[in-house]
């Protein structure tokens, strides 16, 4: 397999995730699409590490950091979703308009 194969998969996955972020009405769906985009970036890191810098490991270390931060992000995000849901009783983002400004 060549590097461009993995880059193509990662690019398509990122584009699908971007489409989901732009079009889903459900906030949980938007969070899931963000996870897809993060995974596309992780595939790129691992592929560049494998093909351009064989014998090194710093790309994989970066992936570990990204996975950890994505876990933290999704935990806080889901806690916020549950807090908002308790107040507004809806999961659709166009109803989240109580911010005065």
């Amino acid at each position: 397999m060549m590097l461009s194969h993995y880059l193509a998969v990662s690019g398509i996955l990122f584009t699908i995730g971007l489409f989901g972020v732009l079009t889903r009405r459900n906030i949980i769906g938007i969070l899931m699409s963000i996870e897809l985009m993060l995974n596309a970036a992780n595939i790129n890191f691992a592929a560049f590490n494998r093909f351009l810098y064989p014998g090194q490991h710093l790309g994989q270390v970066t992936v570990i950091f990204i996975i950890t931060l994505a876990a933290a992000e999704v935990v806080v995000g889901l806690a916020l979703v549950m807090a908002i849901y308790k107040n507004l009783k809806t999961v659709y983002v166009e109803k989240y308009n109580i911010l005065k400004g």
Partner: protein
Amino acid sequence: MTEQIIFYMLTAVVLFSALGVVLLPGVMHSALCLGLCLAGVAGLFAALGADFIFAAQILVYVGGIAVLILFVVLLAGTKADLTTRQINDAWLPALLICAAFSWSFDKITRYFSGIIATTAPHPTIRAMAGALLGDYAVPFELVSVVLLASMTGAVLFGRRKAE
């Protein structure tokens, strides 16, 4: 030959389940597709020879994040969600933006075409452990602080209001 077959099977699993995450009307089905997609990405990591990331992806993403999202899907939602439409009105501009992005990704992919792996993959766990506790010790500790902060934040946002 075996490598090609495995790669294309994993790619099909990842891309079709990602389409399921984005396009399926039921959020429950989307969350299940997300678990499948993350497992497929773990398989791609294994095909790239990244052994520790493969294990971490299964543990953190498939075992942790996907299950957490499933719990929230079960907690937050009403019966009417099954019949209302889940895609907003901006799907045409979104499609144009995605076309622009995929065009630029295609350019970048062509720039890197023809690069093949010259060496066989080898295990990197020992080297990664040395890096995490050596050169990258400060970011490693900072990430643990971030995890502590996110845990505290989740407890703070998730607790019941004091009456």
